């Protein structure tokens, strides 16, 4: 007999099918389109597009930008979580809101603000220019814009978790004479490592895939200031569709790996919480 809080079997199946169909149409189909378009002329041209010197330079630049931006946000995010989750201080709520702020700002505006400060007619741009430092249309601008758009990822995964775990364990360690760094390494870090890794992963995926913000500060110089997503756009606008979709497919793979790793990490974190 059917339980009173269950839908009839036909309705359950219908809803499941509708949800699966919806996601297939809405999510899987676009993904399939990327790979199909990339392999339209076989694997050869797709790989050739990835080995093109401009594509290689774009991949290298993307890796470099992420390799600078992610650690900066890792340090900032962990510091913010340590302060916000374990202490009470004036301005704590404000700080929490401000850290989330970059997520509610359009990517284009995230790039724009750096142009306003460091651009040719920016506050500091001309002054830095005379000292030989170019920020906009150069690596520093790309890095800054990327840090901005990925700013909240680590902090926002850690803060709720550390708040939920409380500070009793850390206090006990402090009473036993542990230094701050020792407490972090031996007590806090083991408790948050899966969430931390998950936050870093998401931060990295966004850093490598960011388009709008870096587009504004890049200047689009091939082989120099073009990241992978920008390279996709250039190829597409030049009707080099196989190349555009080949680079896009590489980025899509990154997204899939990130999603898979995130699912695994969540299960590991969940298991830890259950066993604790």
């Amino acid at each position: 007999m059917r339980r009173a809080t269950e839908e009839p079997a036909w309705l359950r199946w219908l809803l499941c099918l509708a949800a699966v169909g919806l996601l297939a149409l809405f999510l899987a189909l676009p993904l399939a389109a990327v790979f199909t378009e990339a392999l339209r002329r076989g694997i050869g041209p797709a790989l050739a597009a990835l080995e093109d010197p401009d594509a290689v330079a774009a991949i290298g630049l993307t890796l470099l930008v992420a390799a600078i931006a992610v650690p900066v946000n890792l340090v900032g995010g962990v510091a913010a979580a340590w302060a916000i989750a374990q202490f009470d201080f004036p301005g704590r709520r404000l700080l929490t809101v401000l850290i989330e702020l970059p997520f509610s700002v359009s990517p284009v505006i995230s790039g724009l603000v750096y142009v306003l400060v460091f651009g040719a007619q920016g506050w500091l741009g001309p002054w830095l220019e005379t000292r030989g430092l170019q920020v906009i249309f150069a690596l520093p601008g790309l890095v800054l814009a990327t840090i901005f758009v990925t700013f909240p990822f680590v902090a926002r995964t850690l803060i709720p978790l550390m708040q939920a775990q409380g500070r009793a364990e850390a206090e006990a360690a402090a009473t036993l004479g542990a230094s701050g760094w020792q407490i972090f390494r031996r007590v806090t870090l083991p408790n948050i490592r899966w969430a931390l890794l998950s936050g870093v992963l998401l931060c990295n995926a966004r850093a490598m895939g960011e388009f709008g913000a870096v587009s504004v500060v890049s200047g689009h110089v091939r082989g120099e200031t073009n990241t992978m997503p920008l390279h996709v756009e250039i190829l597409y606008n030049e009707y080099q569709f196989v190349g555009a979709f080949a680079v896009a497919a590489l980025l899509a793979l990154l997204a899939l790996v990130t999603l898979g790793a995130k699912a695994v990490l969540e299960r590991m974190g969940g298991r830890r919480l259950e066993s604790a």
Partner: protein
Amino acid sequence: MRRRDALPGLGLTLGITWLWLGLIVLVPLSALAIRPWELGLAGVWASVTEPRVLASLRLSFGAALLAALVDLPLGLLVAWVVVRYRFPGRRLLDAAIDLPFALPTAVAGLALTALYAPNGWLGAPLAAMGVTVAFTPLGVVVALAFVGLPFIVRMVEPVLRDLGPEAEEAAATLGATRWQAWRLVVLPALGPALASGLALAFARAVGEYGSVIFIAGNRPMESEIAPLLIVARLEQYDYAGAAALGLAMLLLSFALLLAFGLVQRWLRRGMA
């Protein structure tokens, strides 16, 4: 004086946090608040009320709202199925929901354009029915709906999980049909989460750029989104004009979200 805390590190971590926040976020954002006024009050007003600007703002905010509203029932359906039913592939489905979060926006834009172009897998049958998606405002809505869907699902999922069957059991015991229990017990409980999801999806969609510009066609007055106009002004070195439009967008979306939050609070009070 404050009691000395047992835990060390507040000063150091707080210092790092404010430095990080200040240099990366607050100082650059202050430029957005200050620079438009180089044009003077009248200049700023003229700059953000040009017909082309107004058309782009209407499109960005209108399409974002429409897309979030489309996502609402779809997200609710997906969340319901993932939380309440057990079926093969459920885990995969659950992980796949975040795809729009993880997929670079340019890739999403390219994929959707290929899909909905007049010769695409979905575009061709739709064209046969007389519907053009790619390179029209409808394409903008499709792209924004893609980007916003996970926000609704991820807000509703935890609430639905915590809700448990007790309230529905009570409703059933009192003679409610399944539909009545769902409409009168479940849906109101999900109300706040749905509203938050709607706000998040909307906020994200308003500023969206990468996934839109490929599919939009970008014709002035018709399918040109506001962020694209910011880029166009920057390319002409019109910094103040770009900043004015950026500031207007930001203030407008904050005002809308604030109003939305107030309505939400009012609704919640009405329910309690």
